[in-house]
């Protein structure tokens, strides 16, 4: 085997090691990581879907409960992929075991890819669990498997990267809950999870277009239901654009050693 092939085999082993460690971490504490989103989503379905939804009637030609399914699934994916990376990477800084990776012969993109893949893995597991829960409440039919899967994975990559950057800057456990509480939740709730932005006055429709979560929710809704407030190509362009920018920024932070080296 050539030197180059040896090197990439070593990188692959390192990546697998970080990913396995990350998956085992959230699997060990599944009661804290996988169960709560399932319960929360079930409550959303009962309250907004069954109890209130019946009074609301149809939205864009779908029963209200069916309309909110994509947003609720994606909301779980967003919060869990973010939470996994922010808590795992901050913990590794707090306990100093990030040093195990910093001293190893790894390029920074492998470290980033390992943590982000861990976040994606949790996003996918939680997303699947929430999808199964949603099947008890709605008639789930998938309009486009390709779009659904692609949005699912790209969204979790994007928010896993966001969680990583948050963890790099975090200096306390408070710092890892500020962004989810004050930025992520409002963006998600105002991102068209529970409504179509066509219901809003024109001014607020335009304001909503500045919310990146709107594009993900609508692209995902297109994948499941075949309807979207946003053209699909615009949604993908926005999502991929954000991923490229956040990935570049995260690599820059790692290369500079911000928050992890003195």
């Amino acid at each position, binding site marked *: 085997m050539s030197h180059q092939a040896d090197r990439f085999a070593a990188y692959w082993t390192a990546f697998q090691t970080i990913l396995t460690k990350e998956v085992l971490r959230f699997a060990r504490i599944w009661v804290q990581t996988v169960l709560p989103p399932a319960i929360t989503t079930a409550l959303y379905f009962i309250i907004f879907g069954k109890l209130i939804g019946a009074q609301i009637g149809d939205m864009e030609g779908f029963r209200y409960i069916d309309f909110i399914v994509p947003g609720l699934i994606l909301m779980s994916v967003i919060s869990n992929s973010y939470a996994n990376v922010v808590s795992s990477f901050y913990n590794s800084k707090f306990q100093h075991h990030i040093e195990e990776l910093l*001293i190893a012969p790894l390029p920074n993109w492998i470290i980033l890819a390992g943590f982000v893949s861990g976040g994606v893995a949790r996003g996918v597991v939680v997303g699947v669990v929430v999808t199964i829960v949603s099947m008890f409440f709605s008639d789930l039919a998938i309009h486009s498997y390709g779009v659904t899967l692609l949005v699912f994975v790209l969204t979790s990559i994007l928010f896993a990267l966001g969680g990583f950057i948050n963890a790099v800057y975090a200096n306390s456990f408070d710092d890892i809950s500020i962004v989810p509480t004050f930025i992520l939740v409002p963006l998600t709730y105002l991102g068209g999870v529970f409504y179509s932005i066509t219901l809003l006055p024109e001014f607020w429709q335009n304001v909503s277009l500045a919310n990146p979560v709107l594009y993900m929710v609508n692209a995902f809704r297109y994948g499941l239901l075949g309807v979207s407030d946003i053209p699909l190509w615009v949604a993908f362009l926005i999502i991929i654009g954000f991923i490229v920018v956040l990935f570049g920024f995260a690599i820059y932070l790692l290369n500079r050693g911000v928050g992890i080296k003195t």
Partner: protein
Amino acid sequence: MQALSIKNLQKTYKNGPQALCGIDLEVDEGDFFALLGPNGAGKSTAIGVISSLVNKSGGTVKVFGHDLDKAPEAVKACIGLVPQEFNFNMFEPVVEIVVNQAGYYGIPRKEAYRRAEVYLKQLDLWEKRHAEARSLSGGMKRRLMIARALVHEPRLLILDEPTAGVDIEIRHSMWQFLKRINEQGTTIILTTHYLEEAESLCRNIAIINRGRIAERAAMGEMLRRLHQQSFVLDTAEPVDSLPTIEGFDLELTESCVLEACVTRDKGLTELFDGLRQAGIEVVSLRNKQNRLEQLFMDMVANGRAKDADQQGAGQ
């Protein structure tokens, strides 16, 4: 070949002091090298730079010929680090900590488990392999860090106070283990506050003080530079009055205990002859102070005096 070559290494912390003021240091392959210095002297900063945990402000670091700036991965692959503070995930099982570290170095999982077994057994941790790291005693945690540092079989092992807080028995068994590793070809750099540890293990030594190398020599040469040594002598009978023996300073600390200051040009035989003539029979003899400790204290004190002189001149 040189295992480590450092030229003009500098580190200035943001809004802080200059921790390293242009260090030059070379360590030969196969050496067992002591890097000593008081707290805050710059030892851990130097180790941090070598192992890529601290960004340097200037200078060059080469490990087995690989330049840290040009080939950081090649440098990292050569080094195993045992840091001063525990830095593993306390909630992970012991064996997973070692196996994961191997994985970060690209060692496939099956081989990583084989090596983990070898090193955990050698360091008497195999029985604890499934225990969470937080349940280990302080000495076990130190040994776990050594096993983790060795799992990728580094050519250069850096130990930053590896026996801090470890009881004497375990410390001695760790010494034996480290000697064996060194004999098998691994270059070792050790920092420690137990100077007898450095004296008994290391062949070469550098003393770092206030970010500068104050001394760098072979251990034997360093110890020969001592002008005098103090000995404690236990006598068979209480001594009423101290005899005067030319060339020796004697002091009676207890009725049956003498302290003798012996310069390098004098032999102990002359001292014993003098005492015998004075009717004093010596039943046992020991060094009052560890020799290296004495030298170390002298150098640190000299460094402080020089700094004080410079400050005085500046004013």
